[in-house]
């Protein structure tokens, strides 16, 4: 693998480890919900609620994983297909 790629991967991994080093005791909740809270504190009541909500955190992470894996399968298929095609030639 090219050196630049390795370097970029190192940078990326460092980027997502850094938060835990800088603020180990933070909550790491979603920025979305932080904003939601900020607005709710102003006294705003949402006028519509989701028609369906994942019944638990587990189900929610299941569906998030499903979303990511659908994408990952397609990317992996595409990359493998193109590489294989080139190798055949």
């Amino acid at each position, binding site marked *: 693998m090219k050196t630049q790629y390795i370097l970029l991967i190192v940078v990326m991994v460092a980027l997502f480890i850094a938060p835990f080093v800088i603020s180990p005791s*933070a909550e*790491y909740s979603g*920025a979305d919900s932080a904003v939601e809270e900020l607005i709710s504190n102003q006294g705003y009541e949402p006028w519509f609620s989701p*028609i369906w909500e994942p019944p638990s955190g587990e189900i929610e992470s299941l569906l998030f994983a499903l979303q*990511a894996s659908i994408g990952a399968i397609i990317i992996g298929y595409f990359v493998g297909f193109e590489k294989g095609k080139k190798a055949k030639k």
Partner: protein
Amino acid sequence: MHIMEGFLPHPWWEIWWMISIVIVAYGVYRLSKVTKKLPEAKPLLALMGAFIFVLSALKLPSVTGSCSHPTGSGLAAVIFGPVIASVLSMIALLFQALLLAHGGLTTLGANTFSMGIVGPVVAYLIWVVSRKARLPTSAGIFLAASLGDLFTYVTTSAQLALVFPTAAGFFDAFLKFGAIFAITQIPLAIGEGILAIFLFDFLAKYKGQLLATMKVISLPITAHEQEGKE
């Protein structure tokens, strides 16, 4: 960047819906034209949709001590143009609104506007400028993808500040929302830029001919040309 279900009152949610639906409709039209003219671009389209799916599902930690997710829509905009990226983004957002209670149906218009329209337009413009300025391809892709990501969150902050200004006004609220959204997003945007480089490099190497036909890149002088032909 998800504005939660019900958090945009009348008339705002209708306004964003109207703007987004017009652009997404145009995107669908462009999409059918591209796939008709260039059927071999279809797998690439699926790939771009998949990239958005993966990236918008990953909630990553940031230095601010909270989590957020990248968008992935910038790369789609570079390759297919911003309005097609709008369509792909809306599909991912709809999935999240229906199955994850993340974002919502009433706010789908506003969320499509930030992630599917402003982000991609910014990414596309930066890409075009970087080409004109003869920046290296990787630098152009990195800037396009990461700034498209960042501006998505800047847009969300502005959208919320319009509806929920503080006593000190719109700008004060914009900074407050921006402090949560945009600052958190900076390291994530850098990460997205790096991932976009990886995928684009692969495409330039294996699909160079197709990208050249789509006028994304001008034909490389390398030997990749022959095998790109199919």
